[in-house]
């Protein structure tokens, strides 16, 4: 009655293959477009094959667009907003997990509400806000907004994880003579590192991929983040250089995809602990 492992594996791969093909299709598309010579972009009937690898597309793209700058901008914004979100979320999640206080329920509801606000719905108000603080065309405006929009989720995840760290550990450390600060830094936070990593990845991905706010807040080319940079290459041009666009998406995607595939097992583990509680 039990299927052999081999048989089961084959069956599963067959079941998954349609989805996988659809998932891999854009990646293949990106790649073959990015490396084909320009004059083979529009051939009819269209075909996957092409005459030669034209790696120069990447170099041209890098030179013609501000891709390197956009990459650094995206990194800066994603890393900083993730750091900020974590720094603010950790104490809040700790309080929610360990303390009982008035307004706790309302605070949680408030967080849930902030989850519902799409940046696009608020984009006008946000813009005026940033104008008042002189942060328009400043990457830090994105850092602040991304951190704020990610916080609900990070607090939520962290709190669920914190609930799984036995309170006795901290109590034991107090018995051992630690004050609250030592107990937090020496005992609690080291144990919470996996949760912080997982939560950080979520926040990073969201910031890395965000589009609408970056489009609105960032005015000058040198401050573009990657999604805006790529979008600018297709939007309203007299001519779209698809091979450059695709070279850009390949460069923007592949490193993230690699890091991501390495980290995904931790994400799942994190989800098992977090999110739902």
């Amino acid at each position, binding site marked *: 009655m039990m299927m052999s492992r081999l048989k089961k594996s084959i069956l599963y791969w067959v079941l998954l293959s349609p989805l996988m093909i659809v998932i891999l299709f854009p990646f293949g598309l990106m790649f073959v477009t990015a490396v084909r010579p320009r004059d083979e972009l529009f051939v009819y009937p269209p075909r996957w094959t092409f005459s030669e690898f034209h790696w120069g597309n990447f170099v041209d793209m890098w030179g013609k667009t501000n891709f390197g700058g956009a990459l650094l901008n995206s990194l800066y914004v994603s890393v900083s907003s993730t750091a900020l979100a974590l720094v603010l979320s950790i104490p809040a999640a700790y309080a929610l997990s360990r303390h009982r206080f008035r307004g706790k329920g309302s605070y949680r509801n408030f967080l849930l509400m902030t989850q519902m606000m799409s940046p696009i719905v608020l984009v006008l108000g946000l813009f005026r806000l940033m104008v008042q603080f002189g942060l328009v065309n400043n990457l830090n405006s994105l850092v602040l907004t991304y951190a704020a929009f990610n916080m609900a989720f990070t607090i939520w995840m962290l709190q669920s994880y914190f609930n799984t760290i036995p309170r006795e550990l901290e109590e034991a450390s107090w018995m051992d003579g630690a004050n609250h600060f030592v107990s937090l830094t020496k005992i609690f936070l080291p144990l919470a590192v996996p949760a912080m990593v997982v939560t950080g990845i979520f926040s990073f991905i969201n910031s890395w991929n965000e589009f609408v706010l970056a489009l609105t807040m960032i005015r000058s080319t*040198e401050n573009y983040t990657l999604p805006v940079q790529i979008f600018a290459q297709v939007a309203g041009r007299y001519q779209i250089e698809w091979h450059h666009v695709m070279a850009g998406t390949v460069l923007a995607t592949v490193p993230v995809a690699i890091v991501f595939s390495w980290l995904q097992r931790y994400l799942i583990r994190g989800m098992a602990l977090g999110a739902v509680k």
Partner: protein
Amino acid sequence: MKPISWKTIAASTLAIGVLGAIVPAQSQTRVDFTVAEYSSNTGPYFEQVAAAFEKENPDIDIKIQVVPWDTLLQRLTSDIAGGTTPDISIIGTRWLLDFASQGVAESLDAHLTPEFKSTFIDTFMAPSVVDGKIMGLPVAASARAMMINTDLFEKAGATPPTNWDEFYDAAKKLSALPDTFGFGLQGKEIETDAYYYYSLWTHGGDILKADGTSGLDSPEALKAAVLYKTMIDERLTQPSPTNYNREEVFNLFKQGKVGMVFTFPMLIPQIKAEAPNLHYKIMPFPEGKAKATYGVTDTLMMFANSDVKDAAWKFIEFAYKDEWRTKFDHGEGFLPVTKNVAAEEFYKTDPDISGFAAGLPYAKFAPTIANWEEIADITVRTMQQIYLGQQAPEAALQAAAAQINTIRSK
């Protein structure tokens, strides 16, 4: 400043960022200039102009922001809403009225000397005049024309058309060729309405009637639309025009699949680069009851709340020197807006450019009216409904005219 800016930001702490404390201390006058991105040459070109200007005027710093066309209006809208407008900007002339009527645009009459004013070609100056005041300067101009693939015409034994009947016949002959479409019809995104106006105008109609109401319910408008629809139905265009934006129609042309397209001069350098073996000819639009072309200008405007108007104006005058204008027009493939550049031999003898320039005497412009974008959007939607067969042309046009009239009367 530019290459290190992200590091500067990175170095500043968030707390400082919140306080907005990273304003570089500068004693220079700074002029913010928002530039619409026509091509990848646009940014570098203006940086060059600015560098040359700054060399002559070390006390003025020209800060250029290059913005893609598709997001330009959104940018300016949020800039104005937030009170962070640049000092000068390139805009689509069709937006100028909105800017002027809201008091956002600065009238240039006070700055404009008669000599400077006289350098412009009058046709292009006209759309910038709102209520008798000059609200901006034409910065880029193009006219539209028909481009045909002469090889295909030869193969099909068709004659280059001068009127719509000939156009229709030529399309039929061209479409008979294998894997070839007679007419490349644009059906989505930016300027889908313009593709219809070409037909509308040459059939003798207009966007607005003399009394200011929509011209879409006129018999000419119907005729213009029915012609396109018929050609779609008879497979004289590429299939499913609503999946083709401007760029994609031109791609078909570059591939030699399409015999006739309506286009702008900027296509020529692209063809030279990408399809050097394609033989083409620039022709006026087919005539119906009238001769027409679409004149499109973009405007350089100054913002009313700029506090460095004099410095900005100084830069504008600098940028309109002949050497710079020539460089710009040639680089982007525009028609000249100043008389001196237009007088160049090139614009008369070059078969490509002269083909476009020929239409200027009878060029029509998009009307400078409030809510133009919304009206254009209604037109696009209506055309798409007609092309898709969702509505009969007559009913669709009537409905569109009614909607436009409502907006007009607001």
